[in-house]
């Protein structure tokens, strides 16, 4: 056990308890509105845009992401913002303007269901099963990471933390379903911002503000062999892979991260899309990703900047800031944020900071469980195990019961996955790799489905498989320099080396997406379209009436919001070039 010297006092625990009382209270308050499966699994499609928008990005602010990004801030500097700016915003804008009309307008209750409506049953089945498995594994990994962190840092019992957190998540999702998960994600968003803001302000104050930070970074960064301002710029040093710590060139970032990886994630991952689908109208659904995009662009200042400050602190002897080391003598970068909490926060706000971390872990778990419920109940159970009988009331009751049971089942399997994660250290990397192998082809297939009338079910199914296969092969024949395990690649043959893992990921995604698109195209041209124009209305661009939002005031229109988002993105990119 790593001794990080954390001691919590009564006020810290009091703050945690208040938070959890509210989390459970929200679930409890929603219980009486859970009358049918639609209310439980789709939040009754009644969420206001601002709620859905904040939940949209909050789902993505899981603790693994927060801890990882702060650590990345120390390792790569402001280059890490590529994951938030180019690597998220264009995809979110595209989803909002061009894809939500089809996701929402089609009345599909999930992404797999959209695939069934647009393509066919086997495409839906493939996606539903893969997604269900991946999302429950992800939930389990969050659970495991929480329990391990609490054990290593606070000395809490591993099994107790795991089971207690599982119990809390189970309680509020069982009571209030998707609505409960979404409302708590909004609560979590605010507590993360408020809980982490003090360390941003204090660490900058400690180092003499942004200018002081830049000055103290210069010798450290030069010592690593980079230009002195590399850690506070984003595009300037992406001309060559060796000039920046990420090890990628600008076109790799643009095409790999900015396009394939981010569109594959933001536009197809049901965990995210589900939040937009819960909105009360099409305009609200389109605005959801855009409303989320605005705080998303500023989160780097909350999460990445303290990481950069941590790098300076680590290299300044007088500050007493030390990251725990792992067995190989390497600093555990993921612990950067928790050590920052310890460095600057006295009892009181310390409890707030720890609560923020706990909140983000649990929100990740709840989000995954709520997405699993919906896909299990509608796309697997209702499609293959027990279709509707026609008696609406008894069906509604039945599927509500199934949805509730799926919550329990989902949490139990997550606990199992958590224990599995404790046996295999690399499971997090493994899952992310597999996820991107599935998402990139899926984006190609969905994109072609929405914008090309001719794409057929056989083509989509084949395209998904082909893309995944190519991704696997690419991963098997390439490896990042210095890789020590086969999880990182090269398990077929060590035929090609990428300078860094990220480059390998980008290219895997690019090949997977391109293959999927080409195969879907070719097979579509050689198979018959089984769906009539009437069936495809609302699912494809050419057969859907144009959206009329003249009745909406200009500042609430999706196009205006999108322009605002892109303007902010451009300004930030220029400021931190």
């Amino acid at each position, binding site marked *: 056990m790593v001794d990080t010297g954390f001691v919590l006092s009564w006020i810290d625990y009091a*703050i945690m308890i*208040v938070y959890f009382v509210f989390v459970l209270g*929200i679930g409890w308050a929603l219980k009486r509105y859970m009358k049918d499966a639609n209310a439980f699994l789709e939040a009754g499609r009644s969420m206001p845009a601002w709620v859905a928008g904040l939940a949209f990005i909050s789902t993505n602010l899981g603790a693994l992401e927060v801890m990882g990004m702060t650590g990345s801030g120390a390792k790569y500097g402001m280059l890490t913002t590529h994951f938030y700016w180019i690597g998220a915003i264009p995809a979110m804008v595209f989803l909002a303007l061009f894809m939500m009309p089809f996701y929402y307008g089609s009345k599909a209750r999930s992404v797999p269901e959209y695939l069934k409506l647009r393509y066919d049953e086997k495409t839906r089945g493939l996606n539903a099963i893969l997604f269900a498995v991946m999302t429950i594994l992800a939930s389990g990994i969050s659970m495991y990471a929480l329990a391990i962190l609490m054990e290593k840092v606070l000395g809490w019992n591993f099994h107790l933390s795991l089971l207690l957190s599982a119990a809390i998540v189970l309680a509020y999702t069982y009571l209030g379903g998707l609505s409960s998960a979404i409302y708590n994600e909004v609560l979590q968003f605010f507590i993360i911002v*408020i809980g982490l803001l*003090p360390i941003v302000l*204090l660490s900058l104050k400690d180092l003499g503000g942004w200018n002081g930070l830049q000055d103290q970074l210069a010798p450290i960064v030069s010592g690593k062999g980079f230009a002195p301002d590399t850690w506070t710029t984003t595009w300037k040093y992406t001309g060559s892979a060796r000039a920046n710590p990420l090890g990628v060139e600008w076109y790799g970032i643009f095409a790999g991260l900015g396009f394939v990886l981010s569109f594959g994630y933001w536009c197809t991952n049901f965990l995210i899309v589900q939040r937009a689908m819960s909105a009360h109208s099409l305009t609200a659904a389109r605005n959801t990703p855009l409303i989320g995009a605005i705080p998303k662009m500023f989160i780097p200042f909350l999460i990445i900047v303290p990481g950069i400050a941590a790098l300076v602190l680590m290299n300044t002897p007088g500050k007493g800031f030390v990251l725990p080391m792992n067995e190989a003598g390497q600093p555990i970068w993921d612990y950067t944020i928790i050590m920052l909490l310890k460095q*600057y926060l*006295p009892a009181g706000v310390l409890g707030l900071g720890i609560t923020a971390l706990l909140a983000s872990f649990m929100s990740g778990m709840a989000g995954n469980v709520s997405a699993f419920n919906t896909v299990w109940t509608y796309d697997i159970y209702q499609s293959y195990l027990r279709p509707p009988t026609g008696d609406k009331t008894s069906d509604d009751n039945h599927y509500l019961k199934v949805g509730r049971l799926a919550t329990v089942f989902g949490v139990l399997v997550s606990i199992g996955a958590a224990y599995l994660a404790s046996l295999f250290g690399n499971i997090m990397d493994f899952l992310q790799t597999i996820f991107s192998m599935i998402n990139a082809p899926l984006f190609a297939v969905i994109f072609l489905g929405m914008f090309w009338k001719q794409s057929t079910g056989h083509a989509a199914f084949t395209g998904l498989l082909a893309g995944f296969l190519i991704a696997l092969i690419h991963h098997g024949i390439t490896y990042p320099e210095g890789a020590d395990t086969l999880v990182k690649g090269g398990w077929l043959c060590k035929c090609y080396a990428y300078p860094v893992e990220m480059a390998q990921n980008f290219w895997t995604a690019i090949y997977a997406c391109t293959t999927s698109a080409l195969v879907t195209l070719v097979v579509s041209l050689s198979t018959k379209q089984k769906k009539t124009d009437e069936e495809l209305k609302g699912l494809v661009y050419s057969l859907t009436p144009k959206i009329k939002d003249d009745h909406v005031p200009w500042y609430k229109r999706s196009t205006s919001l999108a322009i605002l988002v892109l303007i902010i993105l451009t300004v930030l990119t220029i400021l931190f070039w």
Partner: protein
Amino acid sequence: MGIDIKFPIGLMFSILGLFLTVYGLFTSSDAMLYSRSLGVNVNLWSGIGMLLFGGIMLFLAWKSKKSKHT
């Protein structure tokens, strides 16, 4: 659906804000406690900030409720 989330959010941050403001006031002379936060009484500042935020949320929730009944 069903509940207006602004209300629980406002309530929770008002309560937490109150906790920390009071705690901050009581410990304001404790230099050792705030030595790690560079002498700044973070509890007091956070507390006040949260009270403000909670208050705004509660106000917005009340306004929504009023406009629903008119």
